[in-house]
């Protein structure tokens, strides 16, 4: 099995419970799923269905009670990974996109993107060059000196995408990335994520309530009461942006 055929993210029988006895809550029960390179999948479900818990598990910040998780074929949560190593894994392998962009308010757009490159060990010059390249690619190069408080929601989300892909991660986790955007901007953001998934051969996992973007997913995982209820294959619309990832 070569790299393209192997799932980037594999979950097998993942369960997570909080508390014990009468106060025990089963947030996830026997969830199994996998995401292939270049695939963009949706995690959907009502509130309390376990989407956030599953996202935290995939993000390597919440250890499941049982089950196995693999990233690029390597077992995570098998007691060989120290906390610091998981953080390094997130820095190198996972990009995060948030509902409210979560840009650091004291850094400008360029610095927000360059920071993750510097954290990964790149020189300041190299990090800034990469950040400039990505901001230009995402159409917000002209706003690189702007502070997050002074740019629009759509621009901020593009900067956040630039930050998420700055280290060329293999997995992108997006938590309600379009919830704070109007339809047009939401479409642009999804175009960008599809583009990145395709060109970078990254696995993109999107938690969303936004039905307008469901048609952008290759597959949709429906969660209810912590269980994976159905897996739906969706027809993916063509990417309209036509941009080439640098």
């Amino acid at each position, binding site marked *: 099995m070569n790299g393209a055929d192997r799932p980037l993210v594999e979950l097998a029988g993942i369960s997570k419970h909080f508390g014990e006895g009468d106060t025990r809550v089963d947030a996830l029960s026997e969830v199994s799923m996998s995401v292939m390179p270049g695939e963009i999948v949706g995690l959907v479900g009502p509130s309390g269905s376990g989407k956030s818990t599953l996202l935290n598990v995939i993000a390597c910040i919440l250890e499941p009670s049982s089950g196995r998780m693999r990233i690029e074929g390597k077992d995570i949560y098998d007691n060989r990974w120290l906390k610091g190593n998981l953080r390094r*894994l997130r820095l190198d392998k996972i990009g995060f996109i948030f509902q409210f962009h979560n840009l650091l308010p004291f850094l400008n757009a360029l610095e927000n993107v360059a920071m*993750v490159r510097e954290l990964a060990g790149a020189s300041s010059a190299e990090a800034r060059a990469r950040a400039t390249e990505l901001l230009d690619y995402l159409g917000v190069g002209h706003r690189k000196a702007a502070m997050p408080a002074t740019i629009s929601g759509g621009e901020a989300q593009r900067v956040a995408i630039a930050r998420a892909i700055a280290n060329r991660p293999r997995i992108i986790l997006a938590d309600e990335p379009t919830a704070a955007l109007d339809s047009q901007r939401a479409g642009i953001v999804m175009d960008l994520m599809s583009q990145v998934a395709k060109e970078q051969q990254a696995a993109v996992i999107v938690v969303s309530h936004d039905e307008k973007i469901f048609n952008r997913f290759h597959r949709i995982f429906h969660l209810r009461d912590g269980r994976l209820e159905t897996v739906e294959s969706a027809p993916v619309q063509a990417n309209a942006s036509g941009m080439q990832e640098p």
Partner: protein
Amino acid sequence: MNLAYRDIRHGLGRFALTCVGLGMLLGVVLAMIGIYRGLVTEALALVRAPQADMWVVEADRRGPFAESSRIPGDTREAMERIHGVAAAGSVTYMTTDVERPGGRLRFQLVGYEPGRPGGPRNLIAGRSLARSHFELVADRSTGLAIGDTLMLGRNRFTVTGLTAGQVTSGGDPVAYISLLDSQKLQFELAPPAARIEMARGTAGGGKDTVNAVIVQLLPTVPVSEVARSVARWKHLTAISQADQENILTRSVVQRARQQIGLFTSILLVVSAVIIALIVYTMTMDKVREIATLKLIGAPDRTIVGMIVQQAVALGGTGFLVGAILISSVKDYFPRRVVMQPEDGLALAGVVLVVCLISSGLGVRLALSVDPAKALGG
């Protein structure tokens, strides 16, 4: 990329105001240290002025500053006859409080023999005493000017010279008059009291009494040798200059030193608590950003570094503000404030340590932040 600097730059106004507030507090700490130093300097000014090697006072007394001391006026002549004594001079000390235009003036009056040890030092204007009577050399902190006159007892004295920095351990300025004038002021009874004494048949007691004799020795003669000679007179005690300074700093101003020292310590503790609270609040304001940093993979040292650097920047800037503030206003304090570089450096070191310790609270909070908070979880 220095996150601490960029965060400070982003909230520069707030940071500057916080530094000014902290600077005022640290300025008070610096002022207290300066007041403490000033207290010691002032306490030693009077005792160092005569450049004595030895003080001869009443037997079994630690005079003339810590205790009263009265010895015969001819003691000075006896001292001059001891081998190894280069010069000696009789002195009297008395505190006086006189009425003058603009309010009452309280000062220490020193009587000395012109031409002998015990006279004024640091003369900044005018001349020393040239006549045996009714002339006065005053410290400029009295507010007197050359040519001014002052009623002391029943006589009017004219200011002939001014000194600088001549004050007592209590901060009162010092004025110098001749020994004869001071003996008359200190020991002569007012006419009604003298008449009563005369009627009782006790009048006529000698006025030739002094408080101490200041002795300067030849360079090769040890103090202990002359002190042994003095000890043969049972009514006298010899105190070396070092012991006299020790009496002043360890006895006369000891309580004041302790009071100021304790107050300074309390202020430092208060500063530490305030710095800790400021750093904690600054960290609380950044919980979401810290969670985001953790989630995207920033190592703990990046986050801890940001908090510690900000705490140190806060303390350092606050210290500079305080130092500049106190340096600008120290001359307006009623008591002398002595700023010494080594004290400033020591406080800067203490502030640095306090900042590092205080930032621990913020660091603890930052390390406990759950990265899931960034995901809204």
